[in-house]
């Protein structure tokens, strides 16, 4: 086994797919090269693993768990469940775990007999197939459709930003929400002192306490930059829009468009997705939400909130392939003033969201 210091950060995209805060597990400053024999392939969500027996130089054989990425992303990159099998001789370049456990994040994967490169890079960096351009689809009455065009399939996939920072801020932040420089924290959001301290604590501890790492729901704006996408089901006759999430714990949310007031008594119990009412303002769906509990982080990176959180979200679709998401965060118990963030989400045409459950990976996440 060869081990050497890289001296540079691995690409941000290498961790973009993870449900867990990968930097909490892996040391991005190091690489290991592992030569050995595959003993098992754990093809499960959110992360698949290949287990490899590696003989230490002059020592015993160790069984390494190589995290290879999300199965859905892998399949898009051409790595199928049967691509690698137990008994294959392989050579793996990977990012090792921080705690020196026999665990690593895949970088390059080779079969060695015969020698053939199976994979290079990250499952999450799969480039989206080119999609046909076109105007935003509309209902017969002219209203913009947030779902697929009539008679077609599709869903909303990768977000242009996978963490949340105040719109005007230009700071370096990783896909998982870790700041490149902690001194930029004050530019992320207008924190109250306690919230700044909590945010910095989460950053300094590499997001290890993230509730999403325990498969708890990713409420608030985080639901729109969680891997595996989401889709809108517009039930116009019922006066509601369902938002179905493909990632995290595969949950759903209801936006009522029937004119009801915000925050009904029956919905008073604070929840992960809050209570939402929406209205159309020309071609934009404007959604106001209250009633959030305090059991989740509302974005990658660990921004805190309280039950006083009120969100105003604005969804617009300037063309077929683009969803623009703008959100105003108003939580006077956490932030000194309302603030906003925005990003876009890319349309995935002619496909359905595939089955994905965070909970499914208990075996490969926690057990060797």
């Amino acid at each position, binding site marked *: 086994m060869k081990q050497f210091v890289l001296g540079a950060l691995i690409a941000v995209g290498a961790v973009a797919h993870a449900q867990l805060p990968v930097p909490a597990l892996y040391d991005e400053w190091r690489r290991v090269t592992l030569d050995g024999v595959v003993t098992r392939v754990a093809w499960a969500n959110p992360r698949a693993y290949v287990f490899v027996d590696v003989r230490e130089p002059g020592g015993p054989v160790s069984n390494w768990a190589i995290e290879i990425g999300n199965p859905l992303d892998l399949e898009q990159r051409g790595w199928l469940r049967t691509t690698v099998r137990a008994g294959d001789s392989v050579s793996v370049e990977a990012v090792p775990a921080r705690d020196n456990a026999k665990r690593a994040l895949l970088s390059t994967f080779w079969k060695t007999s015969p020698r053939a490169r199976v994979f290079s890079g990250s499952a999450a960096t799969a480039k989206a197939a080119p999609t046909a351009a076109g105007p935003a689809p509309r209902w017969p009455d002219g209203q913009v459709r947030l779902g697929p065009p009539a008679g077609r399939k599709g869903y909303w996939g990768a977000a242009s930003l996978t963490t949340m920072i105040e719109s005007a801020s230009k700071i370096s932040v990783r896909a998982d929400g870790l700041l490149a420089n902690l001194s930029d924290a004050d530019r992320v959001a207008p924190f109250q002192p306690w919230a700044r301290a*909590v945010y910095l604590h989460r950053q300094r501890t590499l997001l290890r306490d993230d509730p999403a790492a*325990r498969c708890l729901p990713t409420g608030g704006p985080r639901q729109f930059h969680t891997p595996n996408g989401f889709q809108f089901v517009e039930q116009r006759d019922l006066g509601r829009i369902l938002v179905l999430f493909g990632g995290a714990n595969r949950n759903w949310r209801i936006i009522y468009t029937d004119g009801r007031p915000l925050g009904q008594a029956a919905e008073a119990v604070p929840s992960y997705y809050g209570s939402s009412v929406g209205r159309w303002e020309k071609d934009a769906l404007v959604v106001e939400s209250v009633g959030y509990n305090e059991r989740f982080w509302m974005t990658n990176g660990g921004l805190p909130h*309280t039950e006083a959180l009120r969100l105003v979200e604005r969804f617009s679709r300037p063309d077929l392939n683009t969803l623009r998401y703008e959100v105003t965060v108003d939580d006077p118990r*956490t932030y000194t003033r309302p603030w906003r963030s925005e990003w876009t989400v890319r349309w995935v045409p002619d496909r359905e969201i595939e089955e994905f459950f965070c909970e499914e990976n*208990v075996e490969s996440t926690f*057990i060797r």
Partner: protein
Amino acid sequence: MRTRTFVLAAAFVVFTASTRAQEGHPLTGTWAGDWGPAGAQRTHITMVMNWDGKAVTGVINPGPDAISLTAVSVDWGTWTVRIDAKGVAAEGRMEDIGSSHRRIVGTWSQGGAKGDFTLTRD
């Protein structure tokens, strides 16, 4: 067998985390513990605290003998918590901050007596 035990343990952790998680203001919630001058002489404490956006309010031992908190402050650089109530002054450091079962450990003064205290968030 070992695997099954681990799965059950992991499931329990997830379950308890999901029922108790609290990611908002670190002091908000119900805390339980005790104080006293020595290991054998402990007095139980239940403390309820809430952050209203400007101040932390709350009570010690809710019920007929409740004592309202008069002031709660935190040095966010050191995570040192100062709690004042009628006849009570306590100062401690918050530990295990990221856990929903975070703790405050420090010194407690009440009615002329002094001792140590530990409070754990329920």
